[in-house]
């Protein structure tokens, strides 16, 4: 996704603005997934997310002139996608109030993680992958919005702290605090389902993956 050289991108943007509008297709192609998944993870509704992703791209096209290049193009797109997701969330909520929303102040509060000393064992009791995926998506959706937004950008989209802060219009410290809180909430919600599912085993001080080749990027990120 970030393989597109920034210079090419800047040139593409300039050409689209100069009238070669068809190049917009090419410009956004690397970010199709980013935009859809961002909205989907917030809403957990496929048709809303798809429609939202389309609206995001159309909006990006119409407002392309306002992109100044002070942020990365991807971050700019994510900002639009996040606003689109929020707008749709508001709309859905005006019908059904979400009682989880106001969960209190920013402080870490009293948090107790799920304690499972034996979670690495017993693969036979593992849920099917599909079910786990569903559980994970559901758990993310139940996070209070401000935590969910940070989690989606940092841990699903793998934006860095600064990009996340910029996309959400908050500072880096708040990104860290909210991310920690979101992760701990998810740990509590999901740890009971993780027995044997992870595919990762610890051998001494190192981690090894079972049955599946490691993907460079996130593997390095979590297993240094």
């Amino acid at each position, binding site marked *: 996704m970030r393989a597109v050289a920034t210079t090419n991108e800047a040139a593409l943007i300039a050409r689209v603005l100069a009238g070669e509008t068809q190049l917009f297709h090419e410009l956004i192609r690397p970010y199709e997934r980013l935009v859809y998944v961002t909205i989907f993870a917030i809403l957990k509704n496929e048709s809303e997310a*798809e429609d939202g992703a389309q609206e995001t791209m159309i909006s990006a096209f119409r407002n392309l002139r306002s992109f100044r290049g002070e942020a990365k193009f991807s971050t700019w797109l994510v900002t639009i996608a996040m606003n689109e997701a929020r707008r749709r969330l508001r709309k859905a909520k005006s019908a059904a109030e979400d009682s989880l929303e106001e969960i209190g102040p920013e402080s870490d509060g009293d948090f107790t993680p799920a304690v499972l*000393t034996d979670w690495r064992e017993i693969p036979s009791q593992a849920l099917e992958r599909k079910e786990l995926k569903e559980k994970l998506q559901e758990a993310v959706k139940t996070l209070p919005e401000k935590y969910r937004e940070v989690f989606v950008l940092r*841990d699903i989209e793998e934006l860095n702290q600064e990009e996340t802060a910029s996309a959400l219009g908050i500072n880096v410290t708040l990104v860290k605090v909210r991310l*920690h809180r979101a*992760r701990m909430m998810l740990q509590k919600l999901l*740890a009971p389902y993780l027995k044997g599912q992870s595919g990762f085993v610890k051998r001494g001080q190192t981690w090894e993956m079972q049955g599946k080749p490691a*993907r460079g990027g996130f593997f390095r990120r979590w297993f240094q």
Partner: protein
Amino acid sequence: MKLECKHVWEHISGYLDHQLDAEMLAAVQKHLESCEVCSAILDSTRNILVLTADDQTYELPVGYSERLHERLAAVLGGHGSS
């Protein structure tokens, strides 16, 4: 620096992101070596993040890209093309 479990929990995220300073990192690591509970919490959190970042966890709907570009084509068309 000796840490209790609940203090270690506060630093799990920072630990996973490699953001702890040297002193805190050493204290957390020392605690983890001898605490099965905190090790399991750390491991399960890390596994959730690995699953989260897996492309298979959040998949694109079939035909998404085609529909997106089709809709865009209609919009871009109205702006003249090259």
